[in-house]
């Protein structure tokens, strides 16, 4: 008996020691930094063909840079976001990671976590052109956007024809006309994933972009000043739309893209006629239908309509994208890899595999998906692409804004409340 106890004690001790060692070990081991020949790279193309394509890209880079070892990790998007957050907390950031720009990037820059690429990748920045603006802080570029898309209305061509809609709307009044026609034909006009808040908030962002002049939005972004009356007007436009009751039943808790009953699922399965969403919508819809085709060739797209008396240019689009950022601690070869990722060759392959909307102008012609090819034309003919406000203003102010816009959709907040809540969150920060 005594012998047994002692053996058990020994086991317990060993377990305790092992546990404390692993617990302490977590802090000191580091994947990034230090070693100049190993590059860690996280991305979210975890499905084929994207996953295989990036593996090949890494191999090609290793072949042309002897001695360099590229460790690629492909993750589902949500997993990657969560892991990146933890990585930033611990300061152990992968050498190459996805950066969404705006206020988030500004925070990373302020914390000294990300590398300034302005001079080391000057040629690539010049080539990409205006799209890099979302990834610049105080005139310096910190990440290279490899895919930039725009938000607009995706619609079901069959349902439009069924309701007798022949022309896509270009003003808010025309949009209301389309909504009335669809409702008269017994079709739910719009779905919105207001449960996730940001899809609802996109309406307000667009209304503000159409109502406010470019200068006013820039002032808001740099000085966190929302005092211009055009922001209240944006809320009034949204309220007017919500009052028309164009949305799917239960839209206040509808998720954006999870499952067939989500906002994207409703559009994909022909339950609603339109949904305002980003460039990822065709891909999301493909994943939500049994045949993997989404809406197929019934898919149509039109931009957010002009608002009456608005100060904004109706050709300006709202969107955003993903850029490759390099950790401050990363070796120089990581910068080389990012430059290679933006090269004509890699971006052309990226376009051919329909992995996104390439930013390198030589690659834009290679996109094979017709819907995405159409979007690229819209994006490139826009005088500018305004970054999503929640990204632009950062998680805190953007989050407060989104929360209040969701309340506006529920009829529990006024247009003035949205402005007040955003301003309050901004004032708390400074």
């Amino acid at each position, binding site marked *: 008996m005594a012998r047994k106890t002692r053996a058990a004690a020994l086991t317990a*001790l060993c377990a305790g020691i092992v546990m404390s060692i692993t617990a302490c070990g977590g802090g000191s081991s580091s994947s990034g930094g230090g070693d100049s020949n190993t590059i860690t790279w996280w991305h979210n193309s975890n499905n084929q063909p994207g996953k295989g394509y990036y593996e090949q890209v890494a191999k090609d880079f290793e072949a042309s840079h002897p001695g360099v070892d590229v460790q690629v990790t492909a993750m589902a998007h949500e997993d990657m976001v*969560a892991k990146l957050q933890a990585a930033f907390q611990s300061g152990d950031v992968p050498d190459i990671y996805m950066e969404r720009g705006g206020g988030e990037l500004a925070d990373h820059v302020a914390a000294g976590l990300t590398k300034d690429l302005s001079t080391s990748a000057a040629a690539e920045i010049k080539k990409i052109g205006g799209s890099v603006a979302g990834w610049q802080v105080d005139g310096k570029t910190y990440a290279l956007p490899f895919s930039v898309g725009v938000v607009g209305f995706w619609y079901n061509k069959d349902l439009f024809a069924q309701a007798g809609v022949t022309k896509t709307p270009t003003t808010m009044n025309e949009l209301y006309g389309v909504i009335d026609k669809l409702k008269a034909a017994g079709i739910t006009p719009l779905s919105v994933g207001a449960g996730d808040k940001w899809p609802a908030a996109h309406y307000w962002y667009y209304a503000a972009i159409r109502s406010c002049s470019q200068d006013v939005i820039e002032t808001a972004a740099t000085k966190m000043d929302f005092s211009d009356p055009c922001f209240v007007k944006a809320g009034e436009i949204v309220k007017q739309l919500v009052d028309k009751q164009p949305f799917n039943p239960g839209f*206040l808790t509808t998720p954006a893209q999870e499952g067939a009953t989500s906002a994207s699922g409703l559009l994909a399965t022909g339950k609603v006629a339109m949904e305002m969403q980003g460039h990822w919508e065709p891909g999301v819809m493909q994943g939500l239908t049994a045949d993997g085709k989404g809406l197929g060739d019934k898919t149509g797209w039109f931009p957010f309509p002009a608002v009456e008396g608005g100060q904004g240019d109706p050709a300006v689009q709202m969107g955003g994208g993903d850029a490759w950022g390099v950790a401050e601690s990363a070796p120089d070869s990581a910068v080389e890899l990012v430059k290679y990722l933006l090269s004509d060759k890699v971006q052309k392959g990226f376009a051919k595999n329909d992995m996104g909307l390439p930013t390198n102008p030589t690659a834009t012609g290679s996109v094979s998906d017709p819907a995405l090819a159409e979007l690229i034309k819209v994006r490139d003919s826009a005088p500018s692409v305004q970054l999503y406000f929640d990204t632009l203003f950062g998680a*805190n102010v953007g*989050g407060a804004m989104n929360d209040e816009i969701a309340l506006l959709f529920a*009829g*529990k907040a006024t247009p003035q409340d949205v402005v007040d809540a955003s301003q309050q969150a901004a004032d708390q920060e400074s």
Partner: protein
Amino acid sequence: MTTQVAATAATTDPAAARRAKARRATGGPAGSGAWRKRLEILLFVTPALVLMGLFVVYPIVSAVRMSFYSWKGFGPMNDFVGLKNYTNVLADNVFTDAVVHNFIIVFLSIAVQLPLGLGIALLLNRNIRGRGLLRTVIFVPYVVAEVIAGVVWLQLLQPGDGMIETLLRSVGIPTPEQGFLGTPSIALWTVFVVLTWKYLGMAVLLFLAGLQTVPHELHEAAQLDGASWWQAQRRISVPMLAPTIRTWIFLSMIGSLQLFDMVWIMTGGGPANATTTMATYLIAQGSERQNFGIAGAASVILFVIGFVMALLYQLLVLRRDTQPDR
């Protein structure tokens, strides 16, 4: 679970010491034996203490520390703001509403699940046909993972063509236009109904177990005295069950205060913040808005509320159950 382990560890300590002393008194190899005993105790207790320190004490300390800083989740934590996070949280209507929602769930759970669970337990304690099946049916929801149950109910409650609305409409009961979960005024009640479905099984199970401890002789004596079934339940079973009921109320209260999974899956705290709880508030502030200071302050407030309620309940109600009979 961890606290339980630690508690047993703590109680073995003096007992073991006493035993060691006893052995020394009998004249064995005194010094080294006591030493070995202590070492053994240390070895046994260390893993539990390490686990507890790592997963209970450290997170609490780190949340308290976080609550005094304005911190975005990365970079150095050096912007000390004192109690500002606490005043912001307490002044935030969303949080105060969340506290109210938590307490609504606490009281509703006790007011509804206690009589319902007790009634079902008393019924299932009788010799009725299909008793095993009925017990299983009532207990299965409790075994199902909360997230899975939430997803299933979310689909059942889909507005428009969801199963529940279709069923209700087919028998002529009108359903809310925005669905049961999408209408702010009834969303919390809907969540509560699902929670009752989920957790009634645990109440019934505990009460049934408690009923097994009621001595059969008491019922026989009552029967001889001509007591009806109802009288026997009211005067014998329920009073004998009181300690179990008090323990269940305690568990239910703590569970309701920490309510998160079901709400997060079904409504995410919406629509229009109608179903936020303290836990969904702090998760939304921390991981979505990256206000880790605010989230830290909210979690400390949640901890204090839970701790004070647990302590009061222990002192005022549970003490008579835990004290030994004299």
